[in-house]
């Protein structure tokens, strides 16, 4: 079994934990409190790794699996943090027909992570996005604020090197 535990080291602070515990204390006796607690937790930590979900489980008595089931059901929750550099590959129609799918796959292979995940060193995270309004440059990706267009699969290595 390949565990989905994040390989990015957890860097939660005691302040974040205290804040989350306060939220749990306020809400845990309300019916249907899991969603609001999870939303707050994601606000506090930016994502919901096992450390955060276990903290919620231990302090609410809700089984960890039930929490994980909810987190993986809703697209609004993420199991992985954002990296120092967030790479977004446009999979909108124009980019896609120009081969952005291959670029996306190449990035996953190169970084050793799937979409929505973050490299273990916390450097890069990878997402797919829909049209960013630069169809003329298709296929397009962005690294934080930088935009790269008219790409081929061979450009991927050079772009990564720039930030590594």
């Amino acid at each position, binding site marked *: *079994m390949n*565990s989905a535990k994040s390989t990015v080291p957890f860097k939660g602070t005691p302040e974040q934990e205290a804040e989350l515990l306060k939220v749990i204390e306020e809400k845990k006796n309300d019916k249907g409190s899991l969603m609001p607690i999870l939303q707050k937790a994601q606000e506090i930590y930016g994502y919901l790794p096992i450390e955060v*979900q*276990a903290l919620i489980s231990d302090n609410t008595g809700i089984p*960890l699996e039930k929490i*994980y*089931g909810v987190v*993986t*059901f809703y697209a609004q929750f993420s*199991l992985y943090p954002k990296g120092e550099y967030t790479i977004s590959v446009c999979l909108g129609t124009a980019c896609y027909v120009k081969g952005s799918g291959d670029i996306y796959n190449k990035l996953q292979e190169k970084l050793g992570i799937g979409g929505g995940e973050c490299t273990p060193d916390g450097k890069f995270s990878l997402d797919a996005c829909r049209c960013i309004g630069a169809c003329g440059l298709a296929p397009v990706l962005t690294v934080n604020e930088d935009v790269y267009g008219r790409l081929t699969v061979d450009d991927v290595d050079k772009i990564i090197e720039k930030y590594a």
Partner: protein
Amino acid sequence: MENITVKINGVELEVPKGTTVLEAAHMAGFEIPTLCYMKEINEIGACRICVTEVNEGRGFRLVAGCVYPCSNNMEILTSSPKVIESRKRTLELILSTHDRKCLSCVRSGNCELQKLAKDYGVEDATVYDGVKNEYEVDNSAPHMYRDNNKCILCRRCVAVCAKTQGIGVIGANERGFKTYIGSAFDMGLGETSCVSCGQCIAVCPVGALSEKDYTKEVMAAIADPEKTVLVQTAPAVRAGLGECFGNPIGTNAEGKMAAALRRLGFDKVFDTDFAADLTIMEEANEFLDRFTNGGTLPLITSCSPGWVKFCEHYYPDLLDHISTCKSPQQMFGATAKTYWAQKMGIDPKNIVMVSIMPCTAKKFEIGRPDQSAAGVPDVDYALTTRELGRMIERAGILFNSLPDEKFDDPLGISTGAGVIFGATGGVMEAALRTAVYTLTGENVTDLPEVRGTKAIKEATYNVAGNDVKVIVTSGLANARKVLDDIRAGKCDAQFIEIMACPGGCVNGGGQPQVPMGVRNFVDIREERAKVLYNLDKSMPLRQSHENPAIKKVYEEFFEKPGSHKAHEVLHTSYIKRKVNEI
């Protein structure tokens, strides 16, 4: 209660208000098929195999019969062409993502999906084939595996784990077509706080969940001339095994089981009931010691390894309450490999101890630390009732035409107190019989207060001028209530019996699977327990302390209950665990 009138397939019927279409149809003699529905446990109306046509005055339409309530003057059609067509299509869709390896599936022949496919005339199981998810089989737990390629997402396992057992280590992850049943963060079941009770296996309609099978290893040991292969059978096995061979629920298979085990080639056919009597000697002694000398009370029984692991994970602060007695399975193995081996002049290393258990947690228990009195594991293989059924079938033994035979001496000698261990309340009753005798010299037999399938049973007995309050519960969600009371200082009982599985071992996770269509209407706990109480009644000796083999084993080996030797061989210790080990 107010009654309403419904018409089912033309048959008029009065039913209490609130009755579901499924229940009304059953009363009228019609079965509506189900896959996800478990009465009171999983009423989610998700699988749609139960669709039924109803007319409430606005024409016929399809509803989920398992959860749809009857209304007055409702017309119901349970097998109209529209109903049959819809159910068939649902089956075809389920089959389109199902790993259809029926020929090599452990459930072939008693699979609920296979039966429905046949009943509804599915001619082409591949008709809706398209993309299929592929899953790795989870083999991480010591007692079972999960093969999600066969899972139909009915969620019966999820419901029984969370609701009946109050655990919830499995659930639905992801969504839509990607949905699968698993544990948090895709941990293997063996990495979670699963207690190994196997109730998920007992309710799985298909072959997605099954025990780890050790029948091949056991047959190989039997074939090895160097090995002395002993077998012990738990009380509840005799109340379930008959079902593997087409006998009705509640058939006593004790004699035929002993005969079959002998024909399989075991060197000695012994009985865990002997060790149940031994457990009583030790546990009654431990109770009286704690009761009179101010030890930790309430004392809680330790026979059920699922319950023990549950306590270790979820109530580690209460571990001092659990009896230090090993379970009967382990006491048996320990005694066989020390006392009996010595007596027979056999090196315990050459003894292979096989147990037949109604339980999957027993597979976990044999690997626990501090369970090897003779320096080798007390028990080598723990097989479920189902595995024994398969072994007997494979060996071509015609079970139903076997003569009734007896267990071998001396570790096959037992009393009525031993045999009732397999039903909820049985350990308590057996212990009280001996405790009362020890204190008063009086022989009591029937204690109806602790019998039956009520969730939590309480009784107070006046013994030699002292009030002794006892509680009996089974099913771990029920146990939680009792344990929370102990934690809160609100429990005034002195002695508590807890069994992990609802109804006790007769309904254990290793017992033959009964289709949910039957379980929803028949209480298998009650039917199987009757076998054990009838056996108890029919036995000449019904008190553990009267068992001649027990008397002898103390005379020749253990001296007396609670002795140093007894502690070395028959007692154990527990481990503090966490709920979320991350």
